[in-house]
């Protein structure tokens, strides 16, 4: 009886009793949800455009952040000596974008091209391989200790009445919002966007109508790299650049599932749901079970969503024919 009360009644009473705090938690959750969405967006992009489920999206974000920090602190790759000139943030970001495009090139050349038209499972497992390689290379190049990242996004709190809202989070939301709009327009309205969708449907057919598969893939992975960079900057500025960044990105997978693999708005909404859900459940139900609900919350929710809607909330229905 007491257990039932503690689980089903008490947390809601807490929420009602201190609405301001609850609102803070929710808003905090929304903000962290935006960060998840950023990572999930990268996934959706690559999936929409090439049908590949890119397991390494999180590691891409980590690698991008590592490169950025390295450039900004003047670190020489592979040696950890700070002997190079320190680039100002804008320049460093531009250089990092170039690096990510370079990586897109390499991935297309070494991994994607030989695996054209292989089964989904195989390409998926190859992205796991990519994740491992990028992880190792990133660590070897820039070192695996925790690094601070500061590109000048304002921090501090914004006070409304009794509520504290982090200015940083507001900036993150704004940036993510702009990204989403740009990407959505890109996909729906431009010729390249259409070509991307064709490629996602059927590689061979796209090739046969003259769509330059290679170029498309490089474009897509570069854009995904860009998105990863933004995500990496956001996460890295907030909690430092380190290995656990890629674990957080792992948590973007359930976001994808919930939103639907092919839906950009789905990635956003899924991210928000998970962000809020995680924070709220951790704050209000966490103490009951010793904490760390965040570790599995996203996955269990994804599991439940999958049971009722295998294609996610906004995904396309999967039709199979004989």
């Amino acid at each position, binding site marked *: 009886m007491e257990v039932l009360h503690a689980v089903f009644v008490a947390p809601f009473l807490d929420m009602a009793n201190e609405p301001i705090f609850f609102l803070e938690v929710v808003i905090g959750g929304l903000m962290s949800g935006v960060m998840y969405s950023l990572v999930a967006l990268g996934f959706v992009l690559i999936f929409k455009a090439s049908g590949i489920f890119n397991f390494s999206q999180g590691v891409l974000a980590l690698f991008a952040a590592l490169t950025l920090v390295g450039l900004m602190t003047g670190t020489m790759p592979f040696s950890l000596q700070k002997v190079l000139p320190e680039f100002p943030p804008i320049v460093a970001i531009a250089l990092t974008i170039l690096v990510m495009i370079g990586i897109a090139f390499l991935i297309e050349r070494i991994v994607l091209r030989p695996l054209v038209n292989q089964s*989904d*499972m195989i390409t998926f497992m190859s992205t796991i391989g990519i994740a491992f*390689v990028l992880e*190792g290379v990133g660590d070897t190049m820039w070192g695996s200790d925790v690094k601070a990242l500061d590109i000048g996004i304002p921090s501090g709190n914004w006070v409304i009445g009794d509520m504290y809202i982090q200015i940083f989070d507001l900036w993150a939301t704004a940036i993510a919002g702009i990204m989403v709009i740009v990407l959505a327009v890109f996909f729906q309205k431009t010729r390249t966007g259409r070509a991307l969708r064709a490629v996602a449907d059927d590689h061979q057919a796209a090739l046969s109508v003259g769509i330059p598969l290679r170029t498309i893939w490089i474009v897509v992975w570069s854009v995904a790299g860009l998105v990863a960079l933004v995500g990496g900057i956001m996460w890295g500025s907030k909690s430092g650049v380190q290995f656990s960044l890629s674990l957080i990105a*792992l948590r973007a*997978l*359930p976001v994808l599932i919930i939103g639907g693999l092919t839906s950009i708005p789905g990635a956003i909404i899924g991210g928000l749901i998970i962000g809020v859900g995680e924070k709220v459940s951790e704050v209000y139900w966490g103490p009951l079970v010793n904490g760390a609900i965040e570790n599995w919350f996203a*996955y269990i929710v994804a599991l439940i969503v*999958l049971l009722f809607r295998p294609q996610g909330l906004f995904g396309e229905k999967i039709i199979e024919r004989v």
Partner: protein
Amino acid sequence: MLYREAGQFKRSYEADAAIFPIAQDRWAVIFFVAILFLGVPLVASEYIYQAILVPVLIYSIAALGLNILTGYCGQLSLGTGGFMAVGAVSCYKLTTAFPDMNLIVILLLSGLITAGVGVIFGIPSLRIKGFYLAVATLAAQFFLNWLFNKVAWFQNYTPSGTLTMPPREIFGTLVTGAEALPRDRYLFCLILAVLLGLAACNMVRGPVGRAWMAIRDMDIAAELIGFRPFNTKLLAFSVSSFYIGIAGALAFGVWLGSVETAEAFDINQSFQVLFMIIVGGLGSILGSYIGAAFIVLTPIVLTNLMVYGLGLEAVTAKHFEFIFFGSLIILFLILEPHGMARLWQIAKEKLRLWPFPH
């Protein structure tokens, strides 16, 4: 010249359906197993037992399990670590609660409990496929690890959160606990690895294996022929989890002796076993063993080479491991998706003709 089937006529379907239809194969395997049982204990050191032989055998069992689920039945699972944890925790709880229970019974029960858990997390496979299912299995991985970490009952309320295996005997020989001889641990695991491998071979070449492969290859057509996808998949989950659970129990009880479940059976374990079956060969019993050996040995070889040979730091060696494994996976997927087992098959085909080119 030596490896020819000439003169080996099979007079019954049974002979044709045997696990090793070619006589040379049979003898080779018997010889190899004999060496494992009799020859190795004469020369192996404690380090070799503890660092190489025992983990290879235990991971072979886990790889067999995952191969049944992913290689034969086509259901991708990233929850292997979590299921190994279930096996380990079941073993711990059972043996501490019933100190007189025979270790074999405890292992079997641990396997069965894990099979049950596996079935529960396999239920979503009714509606979910491919990487959706992989993400769903991640739910198992994280949730189970969290459960065993946070709920003190699973650890018998020890303050350190570490599970320790008490000493247990099989037929009068200690195989668990600090006093057990490495040789005895090894032989125990070897017997289990061989028996479970045989069982797997039998399952896979009969109607159960065909059902699994039918679901993997074309589940819609399979259903139209009369297979029942749901039952078949659940069966795959349960058998697979049974194996993985036993592997986890052995890893805890016989190999490591004490574990902190969240560390020992984390998501990296899931990836490791997945790599084993990719490198070894999806849908191959032999491949499970080869893959396990490869994945266990490589870090050891690499570390020895890099740290002692080239004088690099241990940390760098670890990073390089990541690069190496990632590249290996990609290489295998591009060149030989059927893994080393297929390479072995090709080698045998060439051997049949040797010394002739074709």
